[in-house]
């Protein structure tokens, strides 16, 4: 339970800090870089290494490569659809979540 609370607090703080950086910088395309900051990874890796060790964290990092590629595809799709068709940002980014799941799990399945 203590670990879950620690993860929640650390994750919340790290993610909020990167979100604030995204608010501060202009132009918006530059600020967008912080939307893909390794916030969850930074909040998690320290605890993971302490609990499970380096090899376990390295396996997670390898899978994270697939997750990041999936994030790239997801962000490109979001950008294109928002600019081309101008639907609601929340609806678009939520509706495109299956793209992230499909690409990330697809890559993990193809390159186990």
């Amino acid at each position, binding site marked *: 339970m203590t*670990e879950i609370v620690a*993860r*929640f*607090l*650390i*994750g919340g703080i*790290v*993610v*909020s800090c990167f*979100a604030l950086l*995204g*608010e*501060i*910088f*202009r132009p918006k*395309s*530059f*600020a*967008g*870089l912080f*939307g*893909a*900051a*390794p916030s*969850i*990874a930074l*909040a*998690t*890796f*320290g*605890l*993971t290494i302490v609990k499970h060790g380096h*090899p376990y*964290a*390295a*396996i*997670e*990092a390898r*899978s*994270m*490569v697939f*997750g*990041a*590629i*999936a*994030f*790239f595809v*997801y*962000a490109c799709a979001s*950008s294109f659809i*928002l*600019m081309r068709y*101008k639907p609601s*940002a*929340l609806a*678009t*980014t939520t509706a495109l979540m299956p793209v*992230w799941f499909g690409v*990330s799990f697809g890559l*993990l399945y193809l390159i186990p």
Partner: protein
Amino acid sequence: MVSAQLSSLKDIRLREYCVRFLFGGLCTVAAGLIAERFGPAVGGLFLAFPAIFPAGASLLETHEKRKMAKAGLDGTNQGRAAASVDSAGASIGCIGLVEFAVILWRTLPGHNAPIVIALATAAWLILSVVVWYTRKSRWFRWRKTAE
């Protein structure tokens, strides 16, 4: 030109700070629990989950709408275009994120973890910024040629 505007923090409401904190915390907890339940291979995917992306895009759209509304204009399209530009920036950040993960994957075993994590984070930032500037300069060159 890149600039930092601390005054823009005043436009953010307390509820918006809370939403980001909550989403960030919940996604971090979920990533840990998924790794415990399904193993590090599946859990690792969620370290690059677009956790606060929908919330961030939605808040950005709302901010732009609010700004335009103050001027008596409908900022719906403006807000959605801003969210699109923000997403394009995030896609560049993802290139740095891949590099971050590769550095951790290849160098974490047998090396000092805090140093490796710090170097990977610096590499993420540097690569993202370099790609962003490169893309910008090419874009301007293309526009000049087109004109």
